[in-house]
Each structure stands twice: as structure tokens, then as C-alpha cells.
């Protein structure tokens, strides 16, 4: 099984710790993970902002970069959504399918549905709340997969976030073009986050987290923000012996 990681350009550039965590976690489960260095951007930003021609080129290039792999594991729900849900319209359904959009998979889907992970040995003794990104919910339909994985850790206290499924207001260039609305949406989301009393805010998408952590830092609140892959990695760092029911069927 040849597996590549597709961290997204925002993780590559601004939050590399999330990508490093996902790679290490998967390696601990006994997999070899490649980071194809040819990869750049999936084209989502261009597509969403109205530059379709440019997006098309980037999309075609993106698929080619992952040709040798069986699975391409993403840790950004909006980028995996772009490939899986929007490439068929952008490139045409046949070209998208032949190009392999079907092998793009999000980390939690990969762990639960492909590897069949049902247990994880690890501890994370903190109060955590989870923001359901729009694309995890309505783009690639992750459901509660990330929360199920977090729930396998011991010591973790997962507190439900009120209105978890409402948008955080980021929306890429929306947050710049319509910053006043974006800010109100972000502030209302954060008010709910603070209300939970959680120590850690997590999500399956670093772009939402960039938006929210920007607001948290500006408000000077003592809250740690990290991708859920980081939590899984930290929790399993010290684990001795068997990490999971799945261990490396290569």
C-alpha cells in the first residue's frame, strides 16, 4: 500500500506541525508515508475566488503528482473536498475519476474505514472541544469520525461545542472581501468555544483553525488551538507496545 500525505499549502507553509504530526502518527501505525515534494496547491483558492482556468491547470497538475499512490491522505477537509467534490465539475467527471480523485481520503476516514482502527493506546488528559468544519460535515461527510478517534484516547474530556456545525466565517477570500461579516461569525463561534470551558480547541481543518486562533490570540485567551492529528500524535508519543488493533499490513 503506497500512501502519500497531502497536507495542503496552508499546513505546509504556516502550520507544518499538523502535517508532521499526521506523518509521525501514520508511521507509528506501521505505514511508510511519502510527501511528494512536487505537490503545490490543489487549486481550491483559485477556484473559489473565480479563477477557473488557473484552477483547472493546478487541479490537473495536482492529480498527476499523486499518480503512483494508492491513497492520498489529507488533513484539510476543504482541500479534500475540493479534489473529491469539485474536480469532477472542474475537469469533467471522467477526467477526474481517471485522474484518481477517488483515492483522496481524509485522515480519519483512512484510519477508521481503510485501516479499520477501533482502538488507540494513548493518553490526552485535557478538556477538548471540536469545531466541525463545514467541509468535513457537508463536503466529504466525515460525520463524527475525528471525534470517534479522539474518544479512543484515555483521559480526554470531549465537551460538545454549541452550534458546532455553523460556519466559523473564514471562507478563504471571503474573510478579506467581507471581513465585517466574517468577524461577526468568528466572534460568535468563539463565544461558544469559550463557553465550553475547554482548554484545547481542535478541528479537522487548519484554515478554520487559523481564523479562530487569530481571534483567540487577539482576544488574549489562554486556549490552545491544534489540529486533531496533533492531539492523536501527542497522545500516542509515549505509548509502549501495541498502539492499535491495526499495525502495519504493508
Amino acid at each position: 500500500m503506497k500512501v502519500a500525505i497531502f497536507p495542503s499549502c496552508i499546513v505546509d507553509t504556516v502550520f507544518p506541525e499538523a502535517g508532521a504530526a499526521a506523518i509521525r502518527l501514520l508511521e507509528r501505525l506501521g505505514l511508510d508515508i511519502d510527501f511528494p515534494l512536487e505537490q503545490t496547491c490543489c487549486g481550491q483558492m483559485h477556484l473559489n475566488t473565480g479563477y477557473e482556468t488557473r484552477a483547472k491547470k493546478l487541479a490537473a497538475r495536482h492529480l498527476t503528482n499523486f499518480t503512483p499512490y494508492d491513497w492520498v491522505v489529507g488533513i484539510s477537509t476543504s482541500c479534500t473536498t475540493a479534489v473529491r467534490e469539485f474536480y469532477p465539475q472542474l475537469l469533467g467527471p471522467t477526467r477526474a475519476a481517471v485522474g484518481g480523485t477517488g483515492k483522496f481520503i481524509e485522515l480519519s476516514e483512512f484510519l477508521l474505514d481503510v485501516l479499520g482502527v477501533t482502538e488507540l493506546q494513548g493518553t490526552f488528559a485535557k478538556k477538548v472541544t471540536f469545531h466541525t468544519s463545514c467541509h468535513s460535515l457537508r463536503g466529504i461527510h466525515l460525520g463524527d469520525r475525528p471525534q470517534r478517534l479522539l474518544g479512543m484516547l484515555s483521559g480526554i474530556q470531549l465537551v460538545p461545542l454549541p452550534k458546532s456545525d455553523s460556519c466559523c466565517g473564514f471562507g478563504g477570500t471571503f474573510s478579506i472581501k467581507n471581513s465585517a461579516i466574517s468577524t461577526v461569525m468568528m466572534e460568535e463561534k468563539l463565544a461558544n468555544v469559550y463557553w465550553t470551558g475547554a482548554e484545547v480547541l481542535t478541528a479537522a481543518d487548519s484554515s478554520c483553525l487559523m481564523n479562530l486562533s487569530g481571534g483567540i490570540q487577539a482576544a488574549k485567551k489562554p486556549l490552545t488551538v491544534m489540529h486533531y492529528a496533533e492531539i492523536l500524535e501527542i497522545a500516542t508519543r509515549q505509548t509502549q507496545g501495541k498502539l492499535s488493533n491495526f499495525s502495519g499490513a504493508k
Partner: protein
Amino acid sequence: MSTDSGRPEGPNEGIPRANTWLLRTEHRDQQRSPVSFKSRSTREIRNLQMRKNISHATSTIREKRKKVVSEVENWEELRTRAAQIKQHTLSNLDFYLEEYERNVTEAGGQVHWARDATEARQIALELVRESGAQSVIKVKSMVTEEIGLNDFLVENGIEPTETDLAELICQLAGDESSHILVPAIHRNRVEIRDIFEATFAKKGTLEAEPSKIAEAARQHLREKFLESKVAITGGNFLVAETGSVAIVESEGNGRMCLTLPNNVISIVGIEKLIPTMEDLEVFLTLLPRSSTGERMNPYTTIWTGRPPAQLELGKETPFNEKSYHIILLDNGRTRVLSDEIGKQALSCIRCSACLNVCPVYERVGGHSYESVYPGPIGAILTPQLVGDPLAGELAFASTLCGACYEVCPVKINIPEILIHLRSIHSDHKRDTVLGNIERGSFGVVGIVMGNTNLFNIATASVSRILKYGGPVLNRVGKYLPPINGWIESRTLPDAPKETLRDAYRKGTLDALLKK
């Protein structure tokens, strides 16, 4: 496809004119909207009372909808079926329009074709004048708002009265409507009481209770119903096989408008056609649950042509003083039909579910959209119907969160259409300086992203910019468009040690991990 099929006054003839009537009044006479979504919404979002009213109303209706939708086991099947019926009808619109016209005519009604708002208004005015009436009563209708009918009638000495409660509130207050289903959603009951007292009710006589307010409106409207000769309606569905118009409503005023006056004029967009009564069943299941969150709507009136003539006492020939006219409106719709992705928007049944779940609409209200159709449906429909490039700005009034698509009973993929319209719109950005800067930067970024070497250099410089420029930008960024709005309320992310690609290449991934 073609819809003209040789019919002399067909809806597809001639080049559709620029349709500025869809935009709000102050823009109609200008080619461009002077007020942008951005500036209007930035103003509206400060209106905390409005936000509270809308948020309260939409969250209540969202919960109701969720509950009644979950009761229907084959909801997804019904959505798919509805989407199929609509797409089928739109693909064979010429056929169904002719069938519809034939059946209306056979039932004693008369069909008129209007290419655009101007023609529709003119036809309606002439019909009202023929009846000799000085005033008309109206059933709630989006399409008459779309063509700016009320203002036009007033200008020509005819007094229109809205009979839908929320529509009446808007009319009395001089407000623009702000929601498809609940036009006065931006007002609360105290404000409404005040509006009534400032117009027809005596001061200090009215309690701000929903039942009292409704009763006052009922008294006020009763006389209008009895004295009016002409009613003007919209229509939720047109059934081709019978030539009927179906009107779905909650208050019963629509039914009174259809049955009391002698002359009924319906003005309906050509996309409202469905083939059969059986198809109507699908939509009557989907519509009330999606729009008001009710299992069934209180009043559904199906009206076909002119009521049969009756023999009157003392007369020898049957006499019929009733008339029925229907104006079928194009107003940009056939143009939308030629856009493979955009044409989905014509399937809309105006349930307003997409407005009620939209996080942007909830914060900025309907007025920000500067268009008769607000919210997600407005963002995809208005730019297409108006054909004005600058109305395309509405396509950016969304985070693409997808909540609208999830609830749409006819499965319109709203995010897909938004993205599609954005790409059409981006071609027009050459007109402005900022637009050109954006185009230029996206061009450069696109080239960089398409080249691994350039990308490596660029990503490494982002962390350097964040490291050395971040602290400065966090302080002065609030004066620097276009990032000022972001920086005002957020801090830039801390600079990472190095990019993921560099760490992977050098084997220093572990140094990146959080402690």
C-alpha cells in the same frame, strides 16, 4: 433548446433587455449598483435589533424544519424526484408552455406573454384599466416585486393593497422586504404594532400580541376584499396538463383574492411549470416542510381558467362577468436556461429554507443583498437574471459552507453555482483598480503554485515574512487594505520553524512537533 416554436409573441424572441428592476429601487435607473453588498452589509450588520429579530426567527424555523423533515422517511428520494421533475420540465419548456397555454385557453382564461418587466407591468396595467378598477388587492408574490409592479401601479393612479400580513407590514412601513417567505422578518411585534398605529389603527388601541395584530389587519383588509374588482396573484406552480395555477399560503387571504373579485390576474415566471397534478403532490410535500416547517400548509388553492358561466335570474343567456388572465414572464429566464450549471437556479420553489440556514443571511439580513431575492438563492439568481456584471458581487457573499445545498428541497447545488458565477464575474474585474490588482496577484500566485521551484521559494518566504513582518503587520495592518478587516480582529499566525517540505527533506520533522 428553443422555446419560441413559431409562436408570434413567444417568450424567447428578441434580445432580452438589461433587467435592472430586480435590483432595489434606487439602482433601477442606473446601469450599476452604486451600493455594493460589502458596504450595505457592513452597515446592516451593526443593526443589532435587526440581527436579533432575524436570528430569533430563523433559528425557530430551522428547528421546526429539521423536526418535520426527519419525519419523512423518503425525504432524499422526494428531493431527487423534485429535482428531476424540474429539470425535465425546464428541458422541455417549449412543449409544456404550449400545453399550458392551450389548457388555460380552453378553460376560458387568457394567456399573455411578457418578455421582461416592462412588458409585464404594461399588460397588467391595461388589464386593470379594462376592468375599470381604481385599486387592486394582491396575493403575496415575489414576481410582482421582481417587476416592480406596485410602484408602477401607483404611478399610474391604481392603488395596490397587499393582503399577506407580512407584505402588508412592509407596504405600510415603506420597507423593502427582507425575506422570501416572511418579508417583514426584520421587524418584531412591537415595531409592527407601532407601524399599524401609525397608519390605520388608532393610537394606543393595539396590543403587541400576534393574535391582536393579526385581528387588526383582518379588520382592515376585510373591506378591501369586498370592494375590490381585481386581484393580482403570483403562483407557486403552474400545472401544464390542466392549465391550473396553484397558490400555497398560510392565511387564507390568497384564497379570498382568488374567489371574491371578478377579475383575477396571475403573473408567474415561466419556470414555475410542472407537467402534471401528480407531480404537484411531490412539491406539496416538500414545500411546507421546507419553508414554514409545517407538515401541510393551511391553504392551497388551485385555480383553473374562468369559473363557468351561470344563468342569472331573469336572463335568457348564461352570463359570466368573471375573467381570468395569466401573464407568463420571461425576464431573463430563458437566458439563464442556456447556462448548463446556472440553470439549476430555475428549479427554485422559493421555500426560503436556504435563507433560514445561511450564516451570512442571519447576520446581514435581506436588505444587504440589494436585490428582491436575498440570501443564497438571491446570490445565484439575481446575478443571472439581471445579467449586470456588478450584481455578480453577490456570488461572493458566501463562505461556501454548503448549508443551503443540504436543505434545498429541489437539490440546487448552490455552492457549485456560486463558484461558477464567481468565475464569470472575475472576468469583469478588469474594470476596477482593485479588481485588476486582485487579478494580477492571483495570476502571479497561480504561476508560482504551478511550479515546484517557485513554490519552494515562496513558501519559505512566507515564514520569513511572518517572522520579521508579522509583529509589524499585527500593529499597522489595520490600516492596510485589503487585509485591514482581517487584522482588526485577528492576530497573524506565529512563524513556523520551517516549512513542512523543508523539514521533510532535511529529516527534521520531529523538531516541528508540539511539546
